[in-house]
Each structure stands twice: as structure tokens, then as C-alpha cells.
């Protein structure tokens, strides 16, 4: 039977210079190339921390999936299904390579980071967390790395510990060490703060947690899209990320887990695909990763996630990181020109990603974002799903600009220019 296994990806990122050129990369992104409405300027999209835009190759690959080989995967003994299945599993391998997992079986396709963390909380947590056990997470977590642990703690009668943060938005490592001294069963923390851009020393924190006997869960939603992440180097037990923040489609994310742990865990959801044998009385499970992929997955989205990873790899994750470092350095310098504005979180570009949160004493973040929107500068305002962090920093909310491969210094200039207008409007 003939299956066309040639790669369909007309990737148009060819020669990449030492430094990335955001304006040139932007030409690959249809959303960012749209003709502005009359009287409006080109969109300066500064909300990639919420969700990134998609390059033409990703959109085309998704269309190609639906036009050429859309079929449910596994057990379809016809060409279309075999091709879809093949591509789905090829994508899993590509993603495993992207994060340097030891085996593709350690990569489970889920919807997003939230689902990945919930999977760990349900499957690992329900089996291993007992009454009185301690679960540690940090004050800077996204709600998706807080609420699942609260739920399992409530159910099991476990205790929760929260790593404090310093006034400039970094983890208090002394407090982390102290909490580890209480021998937690599980430690969950973010690699990069979605609200502040703080980059946490994951490798060191994982090693300390392991020395204390804890299993580690890393929320990598804000790191995998922006820097080279090597799960074997980090040695984390679980790591979660979303495809849609790394140029991929909305419907597919990944849970990485060490195979030995995944093998010992019960399933998350029950249903089709995750079984070995079902009788009316009992069921045995499929091997990983199928054990954790009950029901029809987002096949096209999962396949195309590897196209996004390929696009990023062609740019080079080291260059992506350096590009964002350059932008955040420039933005941190320029934003100090804006009177009455204070940067929330780390004040310098060291160990900091391209996420910039700020606030005015007298102007509400939503008003700031709304005026920026009038100037076609897209940012986010609110608590960024980190209410405990906002409380710890004693701010109601912030306005957040975040950078990615398609941004350049002109976007930063647009942000600063519009922030000056905010000051004018509320003067």
C-alpha cells in the first residue's frame, strides 16, 4: 500500500542570520500582515504569552491535514487513517526530540498545560498523595498549577506549602529549601512566570526536590516556546506545555513524564484507545502513552504541533531566546521614560523572559490596555490567572506586554509611544 510519507512542510524560513529579524519573520504570519483598518496602524501584537500567532506553514499544514488525510487514528485499516496515525506518531517523536525526551512514549498529547497538570494531579496524585502529605507550589504559579493541587489536597486531606517570593518577583530560595525540609511528596513550580517573566532555576530546584524525596512537576508553558528546554538535563519528573503558545494550533499540548512514573500511574480518563482489554467487569490498560489518551485526540492539531516546533527549530531556540532578551532589555530601558509607571517583577533582563508587567499608581491596567488598543498595540491586562502573586506583590492587576519571534524594536517603540498617550489622556 502506498502511503505518501513525504513531508508536506513548505517551510519558508531559509537562511537565518546570527540575529533574528522580527520584521522579516512577521511576514510569515498572516494575522500580522493584514491590512489595518482605515486610520489604524499595523498591529503591534504584544500578547504572545497568552497565545502566539501562527505562521503560514502551520496554517497550511493544518489545512493539508483536513484536505488530504483527515481520519481517526489507530485501528483504521485504510490509507487515510494509516497516514494520519503515522503522522500523529511522527509528531510525537518530533516533540520528544524538541524537548530531548529519552523516548517519544514519554510525551502524552493533551489539550494544553492545564490538562497536563490535571492529569498528573489526578493520576499520580490520587495514587500517591495521602492524608497529611505535603504538596508544595509557589506563590507565582498560574492558577492551573495551583487549583489542581488544592483539589487533590482537599480530597486526600493533604497539606499545602507555598514558596514565598521576593519583592522583585523571584522565588525565595531560602524558603523553598525550608519547605523541602518538611519532606513534601510533590513539588510543582513554573519554569517562567507568565505574569512577571521571572526565569526560575529549574535544574537546581529539581535536584533539591529530588534530594528531599519529592516528585517534581514543571509548568513549562512560558519556557518551551521561548528557550531550549532539555528535560533530561533538567531531570524533572513531569513537564507540561501548550502548543498554542509556541506557534501551534489551539488544541494540542504535551505532558512529558518519566516513563517509569507514567507506567506506574493509573489512567486519567477512561474510554476508547486507552485500553488493552475490556470486559463488562474490568479493563486492563494500554501502554503509555495511549493509556493517557482516551478518546479521539485533536489529531490535526497534534500533528501540526510538530510543524510549529520545526519552524522554531529552524529559527534556533538559542536565537529565539537571545532575540527576546534583546527586546526585553530594550523595553526595560525605554519603559522607564514613561512617567508614573513602575515595572512589576525583576527590574533587569537577567534571568527574565520577554514578559513585561507594569502598573501606574493612578491608572487602572484595563484602561491602559484599552488605550493601547486604540493605537493597535495588543497587550493584556488583569491578574493573568495569578491572583495569589498579585496579592503578594500588593497590586490589583497589571498590564502585560510579551514578546516573541515576530516582534522587533519598533513594536517596543509603539508600546512606549502609546503609553505616553495613556499618561496624556489621564493627565
Amino acid at each position, binding site marked *: 500500500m502506498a502511503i505518501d510519507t513525504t513531508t508536506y512542510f513548505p517551510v519558508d524560513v531559509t537562511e537565518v542570520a546570527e540575529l533574528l529579524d522580527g520584521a522579516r519573520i512577521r511576514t510569515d504570519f498572516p494575522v500580522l500582515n493584514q491590512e489595518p483598518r482605515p*486610520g489604524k496602524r499595523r498591529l503591534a501584537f504584544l500578547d504572545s504569552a497568552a497565545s502566539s500567532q501562527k505562521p503560514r506553514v502551520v496554517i497550511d499544514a493544518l489545512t493539508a491535514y483536513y484536505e488530504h488525510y483527515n481520519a481517526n487514528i489507530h485501528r483504521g485499516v485504510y490509507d487515510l487513517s494509516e497516514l494520519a496515525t503515522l503522522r500523529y506518531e511522527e509528531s510525537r517523536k518530533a516533540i520528544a526530540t524538541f524537548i530531548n525526551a529519552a523516548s517519544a512514549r514519554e510525551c502524552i498529547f493533551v489539550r494544553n498545560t492545564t490538562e497536563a497538570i490535571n492529569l498528573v494531579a489526578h493520576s499520580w496524585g490520587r495514587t500517591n498523595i495521602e492524608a497529611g502529605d505535603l504538596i508544595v507550589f509557589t506563590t507565582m504559579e498560574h492558577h492551573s498549577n495551583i487549583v489542581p493541587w488544592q483539589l487533590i489536597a482537599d480530597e486526600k486531606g493533604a497539606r499545602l506549602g507555598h514558596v514565598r517570593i521576593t519583592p522583585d518577583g523571584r522565588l525565595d530560595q531560602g524558603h523553598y529549601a525550608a519547605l523541602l525540609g518538611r519532606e513534601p511528596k510533590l513539588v510543582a513550580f513554573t519554569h517562567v512566570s507568565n505574569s512577571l517573566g521571572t526565569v526560575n532555576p529549574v535544574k537546581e530546584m529539581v535536584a533539591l526536590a529530588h534530594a528531599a524525596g519529592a516528585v517534581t512537576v514543571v509548568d513549562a508553558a512560558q519556557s518551551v516556546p521561548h528557550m531550549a528546554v532539555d528535560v533530561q538535563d533538567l531531570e524533572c519528573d513531569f513537564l507540561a506545555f501548550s502548543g498554542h503558545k509556541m506557534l501551534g494550533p489551539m488544541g494540542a499540548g504535551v505532558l512529558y513524564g518519566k516513563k517509569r512514573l507514567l507506567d506506574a500511574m493509573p489512567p486519567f480518563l477512561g474510554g476508547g484507545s486507552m485500553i488493552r482489554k475490556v470486559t463488562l467487569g474490568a479493563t486492563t490498560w494500554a501502554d503509555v502513552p495511549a493509556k493517557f489518551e482516551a478518546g479521539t485526540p485533536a489529531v490535526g492539531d497534534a500533528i501540526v504541533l510538530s510543524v510549529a516546533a520545526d519552524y522554531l527549530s529552524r529559527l534556533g531556540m538559542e536565537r529565539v531566546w537571545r532575540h527576546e532578551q534583546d527586546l526585553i532589555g530594550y523595553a526595560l530601558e525605554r519603559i522607564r521614560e514613561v512617567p508614573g509607571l513602575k515595572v512589576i517583577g525583576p527590574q533587569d533582563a537577567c534571568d527574565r523572559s520577554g514578559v513585561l508587567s507594569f502598573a501606574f499608581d493612578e*491608572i*487602572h*491596567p*484595563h*484602561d491602559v490596555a*484599552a*488605550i493601547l488598543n*486604540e493605537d493597535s498595540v495588543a497587550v493584556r*491586562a*488583569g*491578574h493573568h490567572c495569578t491572583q495569589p502573586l498579585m496579592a503578594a506583590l500588593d497590586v*490589583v*492587576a497589571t498590564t502585560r506586554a510579551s514578546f516573541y519571534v515576530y516582534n522587533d524594536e519598533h513594536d517596543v517603540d509603539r508600546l512606549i509611544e502609546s503609553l*505616553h*498617550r495613556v499618561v*496624556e*489622556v*489621564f493627565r
Partner: protein
Amino acid sequence: MMNIAEDSIYREIILEHYKNPSNKGTLDPADFTYEDVNPLCGDEIRIDVRITDDRVSEIRFSGRGCAVSQASASILTEMVEGMSLDAVKSLGRDELLEEIGIPVSPARMKCAMLGLKVLKAGVYGIDHANAAVDDD
């Protein structure tokens, strides 16, 4: 560089009411006091009302939040001063929007309607009498 776009919500009426709100403060005693938050922006509005002969004789609002929520609460207090409680009960969002007089995008509707939601909940004396102002 001042160049407020035609479709901007940040025009004189909002900015003026935000910077110099009418009826800002509290009443002690009040015939009813009610407060609520808008989880989108974290806006908070509290409204205190004194009633004489089934009419709003005095009203004050307090709170913090975005300009749209605070200004529209200020505008609302001006609208309902002296109004009968029955009229307050039937006050709809379109009447408030007309008074605000500028386009409110769907994203900011909850901000603009928070004051009205709080006032009506207070008038009805129940927690969620907001069906008439809900924009969902």
C-alpha cells in the same frame, strides 16, 4: 499627541466623571448598602442609598477600578437621584448607555454595567437581581 479616536471610550464624559465623580462617598446610616466586584477588571463598587417616600433621596458610591466602571457609576448616581424605586427597578442598560453616550465594547460592558448591577441588586434586596443588566 492628544488624539482621542472617534471610537474611543476615553472621551470627556468618562474622564471627567472618573477624575471628578459625582456622589462619591458613603452614607451612614443608609437604607441599603450593596457592593459587588467585576472579576474581569477587579473593579469594586459599593452603593449606599437613602430612601424617602419610595424614592432615592440620597445616593453615594465608592470603590476602585477602571475609569469605565467608576465613571459609569458616577453617571448612574446622577441619573437615579430622586427616582422612584419602581423606576430604578425597570432601569435598563440601554438607558445608562445612552447617558454615557459613547460606544462601549462588549469587553467593557461588564465594567460599564457594574454600578447598575449593584444598585439593582440593592433595590431588590437580593444577591443577583441582575438579569436585566447582564450582557451574556
